[in-house]
C-alpha cells in the first residue's frame, strides 16, 4: 500500500508527467481565457468548440502551406475571429438568442473545419519548436518545464496574466465588467455596450482559434477532423468552475489537465480501480473541487456577471 503511494507520488512529481500535463492543459487555458473575457462582458458564447476546430483546420492549413508554425497560428486566430464575428453580428447586431446561436455556430464550425481540413489530412508539418536556453533548460527536474516549453504555453500564461491585469487594473477592464454586470446602466452612462461586447467576442474567438491551432501545430502534429474532441465544452465549463475569475481559471485548467493525465497514468499501475472510473476522474475532480470552493465562499447566489446571456437592445 505504502509502496503504491510512493510510486504514485514519484509519478506525479516526475518531470515528464508535469510536461505532459502542461501540454494537455494549455489548449483548455487558451480557450477558456478568451471565453472568460467574453462572459465577463455579458455574452455567453457556446460556439467555442466550433471556433477551436476551425482554428485547428486553418492553423494546420496555414502552417502546411507556408512552412511556418507562426503563420499557422495566425491563420488559426483569424479563423476563430471570423467565426466569432458571425456570432457577434447575429447576437449583438440582430439580438438573436445567444445560446441557440452559439450551438449553431459550433455545429457550423465542426462542419467547416471538416471541409477546409479535408485536403490536409495525412500531411505532415514540422511542429512548434521548444525553447532551448543554454543552461536554464538543462536544470534537472524543472528546467524543461519552465524553460523548455513551446511558444503556445508561454502565450497562454501571458494571456491569462494580461486578462487579469486588464480586468482589474485598467479602466477599460472596469468598463467591460460594468457592461457585463448591468448593461442598462452602462448604456445609460454612455458606454458603447454593443461595441465593447463585439470586441470581447472577437477576442474570445481569437483565443479559441489559437487554442484550436495548438492541437495540430504542437500537441499532435497532424490534422484529423474532430481532433478537438470536445475540449471547447470543457473550456466553457472551466469558466464557470473558475467563478469567472482568472486566478481560479488557471487552477481549473491545470487541475483538469493533471487529473486527465493521472487517470491514464494510473491505469498500468493496477490499483484495482476500473479504467472507466479513471477516465471519469477529471470530471469528478472538477465537480468535487467546485463543491468545496462554493462551500467556503459563503455568498448566496452565483458569481456570474449579472447580465450574462441577456439580450441587449439599446433604447428598447
Amino acid at each position, binding site marked *: 500500500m505504502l509502496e503504491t503511494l510512493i510510486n504514485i507520488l514519484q*509519478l506525479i512529481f*516526475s518531470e*515528464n*508527467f508535469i510536461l*505532459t500535463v502542461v501540454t*494537455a492543459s494549455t489548449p483548455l487555458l487558451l480557450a477558456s481565457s478568451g471565453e472568460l473575457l467574453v462572459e465577463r462582458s455579458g455574452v455567453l458564447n457556446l460556439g467555442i468548440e466550433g471556433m477551436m476546430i476551425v482554428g485547428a483546420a486553418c492553423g494546420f492549413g496555414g502552417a502546411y502551406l507556408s512552412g511556418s508554425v507562426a503563420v499557422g497560428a495566425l491563420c488559426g486566430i483569424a479563423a476563430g475571429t471570423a467565426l466569432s464575428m458571425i456570432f457577434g453580428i447575429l447576437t449583438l447586431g440582430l439580438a438573436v438568442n445567444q445560446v441557440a446561436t452559439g450551438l449553431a455556430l459550433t455545429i457550423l464550425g465542426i462542419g467547416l473545419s*471538416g471541409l477546409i*481540413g*479535408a485536403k490536409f*489530412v*495525412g500531411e*505532415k508539418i514540422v511542429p512548434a519548436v521548444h525553447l532551448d536556453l543554454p543552461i536554464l533548460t538543462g536544470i534537472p527536474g524543472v528546467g524543461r518545464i519552465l524553460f523548455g516549453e513551446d511558444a503556445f504555453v508561454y502565450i497562454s500564461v501571458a494571456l491569462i496574466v494580461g486578462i487579469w491585469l486588464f480586468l482589474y487594473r485598467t479602466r477599460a477592464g472596469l468598463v467591460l465588467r460594468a457592461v457585463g454586470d448591468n448593461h442598462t446602466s452602462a448604456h445609460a452612462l454612455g458606454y458603447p455596450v454593443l461595441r465593447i461586447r463585439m470586441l470581447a467576442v472577437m477576442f474570445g474567438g481569437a483565443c479559441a482559434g489559437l487554442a484550436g491551432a495548438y*492541437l495540430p501545430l504542437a*500537441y*499532435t*502534429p*497532424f*490534422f*484529423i*477532423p*474532430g*481532433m478537438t*474532441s470536445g*475540449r471547447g465544452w470543457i473550456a466553457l465549463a472551466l469558466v464557470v468552475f473558475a467563478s469567472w475569475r482568472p486566478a481560479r481559471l488557471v487552477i481549473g485548467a491545470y487541475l483538469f489537465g493533471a487529473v*486527465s*493525465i493521472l487517470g*491514464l*497514468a494510473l*491505469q*498500468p499501475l*493496477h490499483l*484495482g480501480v*476500473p*479504467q*472507466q472510473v*479513471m*477516465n471519469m476522474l477529471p470530471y469528478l475532480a472538477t465537480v468535487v473541487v467546485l463543491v468545496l470552493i462554493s462551500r467556503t465562499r459563503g455568498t448566496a447566489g452565483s458569481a456570474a456577471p449579472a447580465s450574462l446571456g441577456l439580450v441587449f437592445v439599446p433604447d428598447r
Partner: protein
Amino acid sequence: MKMWKWYIPAVAAVLALAATTFGGVYAADKLKIGFVYVGPIGDLGYTYQHEVGRQALQKALNDKVDTTYLENVPEGADAERAIEQLVRAGNKLVFTTSFGFMDATLKVANKYPDVFFEHATGFKRAKNMATYAARFYEGRYIQGQIAGKMTKSNVIGYIVSFPIPEVISGINATMLGAQSVNPNVKFKIIWVNSWFDPGKEADAAKTLIDQGADILTQHTDSPAAMQIAEQRGIHAFGQSSDMIKFGPKAQLTADTDYWGNYYIERAKLALDGKWKSDDTWDGLDKGMVVMAPYTNMPDDVKAMAAKTEAAIKSGALHPFKCPITAQDGKAVECKGGSRLADGQILSMDFYVKGVDDKIPGK
C-alpha cells in the same frame, strides 16, 4: 394581389428541376451501395481503410454500382437513424463498419427485409444481414513476435479502446507472439475509451513511454501514438493503415486491413442475385489482412517475421494453437482441435497467462 401570380411559375420551375434531378436517380439501374463509418475517413486508420475498400469497389464496378458513405456516425441510437437514412435513399446493400453498429443494423435489417446488410466485426446475423471481419489477431501475433525480439526493457506499451472480444483477442495474440520468442515480456495497457481521440492517444503514449515501454502498439485509430514514438526515438506498430509517414524511423510494421476484395466480391453477388447471409472471417491468406513492409528492424527479425507470416498464411501456424493457459493459470478448453475454435476467439473474454491487467467490467 398580384404578387402570388409569379409564385406559380417559380414553384413549377423548382418542381421541374427537382423532378429531373431526382427522377434521374430512380431511372438509373446501378446498384446503390451505402457505407456507414464510425470515424472520419481522414483518421488514416480503421475507417480510412474501409474508404480505400469502397473506392476500390467503385473503381472496379464503376458502371454497375453507385456507392455513398456516411462518416462520423456515433455508435448507439443515432446509428439506426443513419442506417435507415441510407436505406430510404435507395441503397440496396449497406455496409456498417463498426462493432457498435450491431444492434442498430439488426433492427433496420428486420424492418427492411429486401435490403442486404453487412456488419463488420460483429456476431449477430439475419437472413438479410451478414457479418465480416478480418483476422486481425494473425497480424498481431506477428507484431508480438517482432516486439518480443526488439524490446530491450521488456515492457510493451498497449493503447486500447474498449474491452470487446476483438481487442482482447488482439492483446492475447500479441502476448502469445511475444512469449514465443521472449518469455519475459510484460505489457502496460491503457484504455482510452474511444476508438479515436488523437490527444488522448498521444497522452497515453507519452505516459507509457515514461513508465518504461520501449515499443508501442495500439488498437485505436489515429497515428498520434506513432508520432510520439517517432519523437521519442522508440518503435511502434501502426494500426489498420500503414502509418510509416508519421513514423519513418519508428514504424516496424502495421497490421493493415484491406477490404476491397471482399467488397467487390459481395457487390458482385448482390448484382447477380446470389447474395446470401454469411459469416466471412478472412486473414492473411485471403489478403484481408496485409502486413505493411517490415522496416526499421535488423534482418534476422525481418526474416523471422516473414517466416511466421508465411506459416500463418499456409495454415501451418495458428496464433491460438493449444494448449493455452489463461491468466488464472487454468488451461483453456480447446474446442477447435489443435487450436481455439473461431467461436471462442470471437467471444474471447479472458486474458492469457502473462498479461497482468484486469479486463474492465469483469
